[in-house]
């Protein structure tokens, strides 16, 4: 059995961790943080959830998201309408932040997971794999689709006092997108990619 020497991310304690069986995880003895985990079929499962996420992302962005009816008038909003309106109102900073956290970071994250898992399944080790794996780790906190969804619910309740609000296809796709991208991130394990880049077979 192979033994790895791992330094804890949170407290720097050096610990010896034997090669984990699929489904096992190792926790730091000193501070309790996760040291390592081992998933089953990391590449295949990440690929499956990430490709579903990509399709749902496209549907969520090109079809109408919400409808708002007041005094006989109907207002249709797309996922990106808020960004355009904030930009038009002169709030470029807000438009950029909303676009980055609700559209750009999620799509790069999904596309990145798709590219990494494809490379692993095809047994390729292209030079961009290292850069992309590092980028994905940093980008994860900035993809805020689930916070955005909560914002959709809150704003629908707020507007519901004034007029009738109904949800369109894109909102359903968006909910499914959050579920599948969460599953993709849970299936994905950066440590498995680093081991693969070290020359091991994909787990």
């Amino acid at each position, binding site marked *: 059995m192979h033994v790895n020497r791992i330094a804890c991310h949170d407290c720097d304690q050096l610990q010896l961790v034997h090669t984990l069986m699929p489904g096992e995880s190792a926790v730091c003895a000193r501070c309790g943080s996760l040291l390592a985990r081992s998933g089953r079929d990391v590449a295949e499962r990440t690929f499956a959830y990430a490709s579903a996420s990509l399709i749902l992302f496209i549907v969520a962005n090109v079809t109408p998201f919400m409808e708002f009816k007041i005094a006989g008038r109907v207002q249709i909003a797309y996922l990106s309408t808020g960004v355009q309106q904030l930009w038009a109102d002169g709030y470029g900073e807000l438009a950029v932040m909303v676009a980055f956290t609700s559209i750009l970071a999620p799509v790069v994250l999904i596309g990145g997971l798709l590219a990494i898992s494809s490379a692993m399944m095809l047994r390729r080790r292209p030079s961009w794999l290292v850069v992309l794996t590092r980028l994905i780790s940093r980008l994860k906190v900035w993809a805020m689709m689930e*916070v955005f969804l909560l914002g959709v619910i809150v704003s629908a309740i707020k507007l519901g006092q004034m007029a009738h609000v109904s949800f369109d296809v894109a909102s359903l796709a968006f909910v499914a997108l959050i579920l599948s991208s969460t599953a993709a991130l849970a299936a994905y394990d950066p440590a498995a990619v680093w081991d693969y880049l070290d020359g091991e077979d994909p787990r």
Partner: protein
Amino acid sequence: MTSARAEHLARCHACGLATQLPACPPGHSLHCPRCDSELHLRKPHSLSRTWALLIAAYLMYIPANLLPVSTIVYMGNGEPDTIISGVMYLFKNGDAPVALLLFIASIAVPFMKLVVLTWLTLCVKFKVRWRPRDRTVIYRVVEGIGRWSMLDIFVIALLVAMVQLQALATIHAGPGAVAFCSVVVLTMFAAESFDPRLMWDSFEES
């Protein structure tokens, strides 16, 4: 077992590989053999970077709470709302669960985050040894919860998108929203620049 630092091992912040550093520091920077990130025993200038970001966040916290975050123009009359007045309005109009949610995301979490990060940084500065394991858990929670404060910004973006019925009613963003958004981003960067391992280092220095 000891810490990685005591063994002159640097944990790569990007890929986690522990790499042996030479006993005497070379003049140039060292890079991870696996992913080519720059290697450090601790995040460089962790405390001063965290302080700078926290002070900037405290400064932006003032306009974030004093300036209007959105203005509802209804039948030609504008009604500006600050974060607090928006939450108060929802409480009075019987939407207590939504008001509570916005209170937590927009008022409680940013404030808690500033106070807790300041406290954690002070603890490191004064080499406090109080319950490092609990402080590590608190740090993890604070780091993970910060993104939920973007809720109010998304609500404003969605309201602005939905209510554009020129003559009847429109909603516009306000300058307070920009300040609030910068508080959220600055505290996220502050949490990221804080190195939790510093909390454990004081146990080895004696």
